[in-house]
Structures are given as structure tokens and as C-alpha cells.
């Protein structure tokens, strides 16, 4: 057992030394996230287009469900592009992606709760604080 452990450790030391050598000599430069610049420029362009679209929703004064659904659609698309490409989440392992991306989804439960709560508050205000006619 001890022999085995010693053997393993020795192997590791040589491995580490090797890795350090290659790093120091500069033969390994492409560590981390490497993607073509063009990808970033394309995403940049799309973010501009989507922002312009969401601004135009306001500029043309769209109203009601059309306005809200368009705003949310452009918002989700922009957020998705930023997280997936700019923050490189598309290339991370799922263990990290799910650990980071799933918890915020639970905020939607909070949103639902607060919608009930504010409807209720609104109702009370209408009933008890309405101006006396």
C-alpha cells in the first residue's frame, strides 16, 4: 500500500513538473475558452437588432398583450445570447450550467406568490380606501 502510494506520488510530481514546463515554455497558449472573434461580432449585431426591436415596441406605442409578449420575448432572447455566448455558458459542463441557471428559475415561484399578494392588496385598497363619493 505504502509502496503504491509513493509510486503514485512520484508519478504525479513528474506530471506536474511536465505541465509546468510546457506552460513555462509557452507551447500551451490555447487554454480556456477559445472561439472565433466573428462569433462575438455576430452576437453583438444580434443584440443590437433585438434592442432596436424592443425600443421600436415603445416608439410605435404598441399596447396590451402584444407589447408585453414582445418585450418579454426580446428580453429572454437577449439574456440567452449574453449568458450562452458572451459568458460561455454554452460550452461549460452541465453540472455548472444547471447549478447556476436552475435556481433563478425558482424566482418565478416568488413572482407568482407576489402577484397574488399584490392583487389582494389592490383589492383591499379599492374596497377600503376608495374616495367617498
Amino acid at each position, binding site marked *: 500500500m505504502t509502496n503504491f*502510494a509513493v509510486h*503514485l506520488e512520484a508519478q*504525479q510530481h513528474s*506530471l*506536474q513538473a511536465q505541465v*509546468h514546463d510546457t*506552460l*513555462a515554455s509557452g507551447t500551451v*497558449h*490555447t*487554454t*480556456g*475558452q*477559445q*472561439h472565433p*472573434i466573428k462569433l*462575438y*461580432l455576430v*452576437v*453583438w449585431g444580434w*443584440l*443590437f437588432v433585438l*434592442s432596436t426591436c*424592443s*425600443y421600436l415596441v*415603445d*416608439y410605435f406605442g404598441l399596447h396590451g398583450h402584444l407589447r408585453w409578449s414582445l*418585450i*418579454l420575448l426580446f*428580453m429572454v432572447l*437577449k*439574456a440567452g445570447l*449574453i*449568458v450562452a*455566448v*458572451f*459568458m460561455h455558458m454554452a460550452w*461549460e*459542463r*452541465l*453540472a*455548472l450550467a444547471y*447549478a*447556476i441557471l436552475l*435556481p*433563478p428559475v425558482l*424566482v418565478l415561484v*416568488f*413572482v407568482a406568490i*407576489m*402577484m397574488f*399578494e*399584490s*392583487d389582494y*392588496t*389592490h383589492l383591499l*385598497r*379599492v374596497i377600503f*380606501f*376608495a374616495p367617498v363619493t
Partner: protein
Amino acid sequence: MAETALTNTIEPPARPGGWRGIAADWSSDQRAFKNVSWGKAMMWIFLLSDTFIFSCFLLSYMTARMSTTVPWPNPSEVFALTIGDKRIPLILIAIMTFILISSSGTMAMAVNFGYRRDRVKTAALMLATAAFGATFVGMQAFEWTKLILEGVRPWDNPWGAAQFGASFFMITGFHGTHVTIGVIFLIAIARKVLRGDFDVERRGFFTSRKGHYEIVEITGLYWHFVDLVWVFIFALFYLW
């Protein structure tokens, strides 16, 4: 024993993907995030916690706006600017949005050049990002000044529901603070990049990790998050 002694520098063997990969990564008392350094993992976890903070701000804004019986001021008119003699709705906010997106673009390219060890281009792009960020904060200061002069206070405003001011100052103020911190962080790291601290393993903050330019990506994560938050604020506060 051999497992615990392994350091970041050794590439792990190929691991399964999909759900099987998630189970394998998270089980058996080991490092859950296999090919991500502690710095990057911790930045992601910090950003997750920051997400909850901004979620709470936007939620309280939603609650205030849904429960008030007084009409909410129309942001399209509140944030309109008169340029020439034409009144354009929300134009300042639109320009601020484009500036912040552009800063995200330059930041993404800075990360790329960082991993190619192109020091000058990386630092230049990071400084460009910082300049965009500073411009954004400047325009926000202009916007605040304009609204305060028009009589908007956290407890009152001339156009409608009193909660408008509180929500506005809280949300944009907190976001502006994040941008400001980001600008400072960017300038600090850009200086280190330009000086070559990451190549010579110079002693100091964030420079100890064997010639890696990963801190540029970590700074980038923070910066993109600031942009991400603005996407939500723009949609939910200004456009709604």
C-alpha cells in the same frame, strides 16, 4: 489519496455528458465543477446571489406597481428627451442600452485576446469596455439629475404613483453602483495585463496562477452580468 493531491493543471480524463455527467460530477465526494477553476466557479456563484438581489428589487417594484390604485407614471414620457424640437420617447435609455451592449462586445473580445496572450489588445479592449461603462454611468447621472430637477423623490413625483421614485432610484442606483465597481475592476486588471503581471507571475492580487489570463474572463463574467441585469431593467422598468 491520489485524487486529492491532483491540482488544476492536470487535464482530467474524458467524462460522460448529459444527465449521467451531472450525476457523475456531483456524486462521490469530489470536486463538482470539473474543468472550471475555483475563481470562475466562485464568480458564477456570486453572480447567482446577485441575481437574487436584483430579482428582489424587480419583484418589489412589480408588487408596488400592481398593488397601487394610483396610475403609474408612463416611463415612455418620463424618460423622453427633446432633441432639436422633436420629443423622442425613451431615447436616452435606448442609447444607454446600446452603449452597454457595445461594452459587452468589447469585453468578450478582450477575453478572447487574453487567452491568446495578446497583452496590448486585451488591455486596450478592456479599457474601451471601461470607457463605455464610464459613459453609461455619466448618462445615468444626467438622467438622475434631470428627474430630480423635475421633482422626482423616493416618496413623491409629479406624475402618479408615489412608489415610482423609490423603485427608480433603488433599481437604477444599485445597477449604476455595479457598473462603477466594474469599471474600477476593469481598469485594475487592464493595468496588470498591460504590465505583463500574468506572464511573469508577479506577486499581487489575482496574479498568482501560473500565467493564466483567466482573470480576464472572470472580470468579463461580472461585466456581462451587469449588462444582463440591464436587459431585465430595460424591459421590465422602462418598457413595461
